[in-house]
Each structure stands twice: as C-alpha cells, then as structure tokens.
C-alpha cells in the first residue's frame, strides 16, 4: 500500500498515485497535491476544471475525457494544457482527489 505525505499527514494513494479515499480530499489537500505536481497556485481556471472533473466523476463514476473537458468545462484545449502541462485530465483528476479517467481520448 502506498501513501503520500500531505500537510504532515500520511494519505493512502492508488497505483496511479491518486487518492484512494474520496473523503481524504478537501481544497487544502488539492493545493498540496498541486504543489507536488509543480503547480504553485491553483487559479479560478484550475478550479473550474477540477470542479468539473469531480462533478462528472460523482455523477458517472468516471472522470471525463480531454474531449469532454474541451467541449463542456468552459476551458479550451490550449488553455487546458497551459493550466496542466503534464496532461489535463490526468493531473486535474489527481489534484481533484478522484481516480485517473479510464477513457482513451
């Protein structure tokens, strides 16, 4: 079992490195994870994407594809990659405390 240290606490993660328990997540943990991912400060635009990812996951049991993010989150592809250079869906899911989306697109 793997853990990461967030704000001095050991928190369980899955094999992708995303939080294992949804309940371990809050806005503070999000900011801590973002820092680990090299994003110093989460802006309103980051939050728009993160909240959309979380909403989709809660409703459908899986995070959206990058295409759905592009079409429906209100943030276009270019900006998505500017906000999350290492992969928008993958990183926004990690910061948002949900599993990595399963889609291929």
């Amino acid at each position: 079992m793997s853990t990461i240290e967030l704000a001095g606490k050991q928190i369980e993660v899955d094999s992708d490195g995303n939080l294992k328990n949804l309940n371990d997540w809050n806005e503070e943990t999000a900011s801590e994870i973002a820092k680990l991912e090299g994003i110093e400060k989460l802006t309103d635009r980051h939050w728009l994407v993160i909240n959309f990812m979380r909403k989709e996951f809660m409703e459908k049991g899986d995070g959206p594809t990058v295409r759905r993010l592009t079409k429906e989150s209100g943030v276009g592809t270019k900006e998505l990659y500017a906000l999350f250079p290492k992969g928008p869906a993958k990183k926004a899911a990690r910061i948002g405390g949900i599993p990595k989306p399963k889609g291929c697109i």
Partner: protein
Amino acid sequence: MTEENIFEPIKKVSIIVSKGTLDGVYPGLIMANGARMEGIEANLFFTFFGMDAITEKSMDHIHVATVGNPAMHIPTFLGALPGMSAFATSKMMKEMEKLDIPPVREFIEMIHDAGCKIFACKASVDMFHLKKEDFCKDVDDIITVGQFYEESAGANIIFT
C-alpha cells in the same frame, strides 16, 4: 506510478501516418492525443495517402475500406456495392462517437491545440502536386525526411 519501474518512461514520440483509410488514420491520432494526455511530447508526420487526413478537401471524407479488407468479414462483391463503404464508415463513426472519439477534423485540431506538432511529408507533397494552402490550418510545416529525424530527436518513432 507507485510500483517500482526499472524502465525510463517515454518522454517523446514521433508518429508517422501513411494510410488514408479510417483504420489507417485513427490509430496514429489516438496515440498522438494519448501521448499528450500523459504529458508526453508528440509529433505527427503524415506521408503518402495518410496526408488525406490533413488535406482540406479529403479530411472530412475518410472511409473504411470494404474491398480488400478481409477483417470486414463480408464477401468482396458485397463490399464493392455502391454505398457500402459509406455505410460501414457511418456505422463505425457512430460507435466511435460513443467513445468520445471525434471526427478527423476536430481530432486534428484538438491534437494540435494539445501541443502536438503536425507535419506533411515533402516528398509526398511534391508527388501529389500539393501546396501548403491545400492543408488544414493545423499543419505546422511541410518537411523533408531529414527534418523529420531532426524533429524526432530523443523520440520513439512509431510507423502506422
């Protein structure tokens, strides 16, 4: 990854698309987009009939081959009937749409916006008498094979 992985992660890929059928085009596009989704740097290089996927007048008409394609599992004479290829293509596109796989034009734009560079092959461009204006706006440049290798420095090259 939390498990020990002894191999270096892939950092960059250069994907060559050489065929102009639906099944010739999509795997390369999905791999390029997938690379960017994983934070991997990517180039797409279109050559020969693969250039149909970035050519203005053909990119909205990429089809499944129903003749000479044993994997269709239909007799050749049926595959040759008028409208058969269009029918198979539209069925397949519907299935792909369900998986959130976009039509070629939208996919190319999305991949380009994701930071993947898109190139056409100089030799093929000359052979088919094409010009930069014949391509969609997302094509960055027409390059030689030498330039392709330069662009691919440090990349894994994937031929489709």
